[in-house]
């Protein structure tokens, strides 16, 4: 798919300008959110339940439109776009997979989006097979999605969205119910999409999953962004993490307790090397 020409001059893929959102019941979920996202950035949005994370990402695929302020995606105001137009390029996987699944079989579920977006039957077939394969769903292909476990449903939702190859993939709590192997696959998938110049936005509580990816981090609390920066800068600052009720990753805690200047970014092997030198 052709990207808009403005992306080539480094203009942001997504931009939020002073975005407010009030729910119909009067609750103000976003209270002046500003940030922009560049091509191939991986972003993790963290914060306690009810901080506004899910509301924020639903503005990116146009499911919600700001009450005040402006959200632009690929350079266009989302108020001018329908969510059908946006969803081709912005794939979202909801927190609760039951909100996303309705077909009679796993295979039909994946076919649905592809058919809707007008893919030809032979591309469709290939995409469905590779989605089933990539997400370990081949054994379930002909079963009704509602019979799958919570973790399997989640995987199906990711598979069906990725099948139509959106430019931005938003994953709301992707690691819930996933075992270690599936989490590892999710990390690999995120890195792969990034290398294809796509954007992955993770909304998650799973800071241990996020830390090795070292994405850009946005911390939210009470409808506001309280910190925005690199994993190192944001998650090793307890002023920020406390304000957003986020627990620091174990390696950050450990590095701090040991008095290291910079927390270990990821692999224990790296940490081990440093510790062996320092402690004989």
């Amino acid at each position: 798919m052709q990207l808009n020409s403005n992306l080539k001059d480094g203009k942001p893929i997504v931009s939020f300008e002073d975005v407010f959102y009030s729910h119909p019941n009067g609750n103000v979920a976003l209270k002046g959110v500003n940030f922009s996202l560049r091509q191939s950035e991986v972003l993790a949005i963290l914060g306690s339940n009810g901080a506004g994370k899910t509301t924020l990402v639903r503005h990116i695929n146009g499911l919600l439109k700001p009450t005040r302020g402006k959200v632009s995606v690929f350079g266009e105001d989302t108020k001018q776009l329908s969510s059908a137009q946006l969803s081709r390029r912005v794939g979202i996987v909801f927190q609760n997979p039951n909100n996303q699944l309705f077909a009679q079989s796993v295979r039909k579920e994946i076919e649905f989006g592809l058919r809707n977006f007008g893919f030809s039957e032979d591309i469709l077939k290939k995409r469905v097979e590779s989605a089933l394969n990539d997400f370990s769903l081949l054994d379930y292909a002909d079963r009704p999605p509602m019979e799958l476990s919570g973790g399997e449903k989640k995987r199906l939702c990711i598979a069906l969205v990725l099948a139509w190859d959106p430019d931005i993939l938003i994953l709301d709590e992707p690691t819930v119910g996933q075992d270690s192997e599936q989490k590892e696959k999710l990390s690999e998938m995120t890195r792969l999409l990034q290398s294809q110049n796509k954007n992955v936005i993770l909304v998650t509580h799973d800071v241990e999953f996020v830390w090795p990816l070292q994405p850009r981090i946005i911390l939210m609390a009470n409808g506001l962004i309280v910190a925005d920066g690199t994993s190192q800068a944001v998650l090793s600052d307890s002023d920020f993490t406390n304000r957003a009720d986020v627990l620091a990753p174990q390696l950050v805690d450990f590095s701090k307790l040991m008095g290291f200047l910079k927390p270990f970014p990821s692999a224990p092997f790296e940490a081990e090397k440093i510790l062996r030198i320092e402690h004989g």
Partner: protein
Amino acid sequence: MLRPVSATNSSNPVLGRAASDLIEIKDLNFKYFGSTTPVLQNVNLTVKNNEIVLIAGHSGSGKSTLLRAINGLIPHQHSGDYSGEVLVDGLKVSETSMSVLALKVGYIFQNPENQIFMFSVERDVAFGLENLALPQAEMRERVDWAMELLQIKSLALRAPHELSDGQKQRVAIAGVLAMKPKILILDEPTSLLDPFTAKSLVNLIRDLRSTLGITVLIVEHRLDLVAKICDRMVVVDKGTVVLEGSPREILSKTDVSLFGVTEPTIVKLSKRLSLEGEKLALDAQELTTALKPVA
């Protein structure tokens, strides 16, 4: 002691039931109706009074089925091929009605929305008790006690569906504890909670064990949060118990990721630094303490 569990290993066959054994599972096999493969195969497990036992394993390994065999959903609600024996507080589960078992075993589902549905928090907490036909005064007393214990008294008149996930989880636990069960079973209780709320739930479980003297079985993927409060860890794979021991023993000697369990980063690091067995660090504080004297 860490030991691989053989299929024929029944608990204490000579002496029979020890007074402290609250749950005994002997050679349990189960296959859901219409399914070709058994979910549980030759499961043998004994849980002592007042233990906190962590049950871990791949998704689909049979963990939830095992829990359902303890509270009686299996075989009473799910039909299938059942053999072997499950004893809960001396009662044979297959021959005991669900209503009697409900007084022994409290079950918290992964998603609290599956078990709260009344119009107010206190009605929800009272729901189980109403079905026991207890005297009004005792019901009131138990509901207040449970709400106090879970610190949700201020929410008593709120509608449960308006609450946060963490609060809903507490309402569900209060409703179960009001029945005064001996055993509390929690199926991935923190999966919907943010880390702070999850941590306070884990601390709550630890405190309930000591204040109420209850026994806890918990299925949980987040070992970084929960391993420290557990006395024992049981790893389930392909429908059978493959490992049991203290979390430190199992994590030291086994790569638990082979069984679908994410090894906490600090545990990985601790093992790379040869801090194992009783010395294995489960959190950053423990690892620092272990390393600081060396520095």
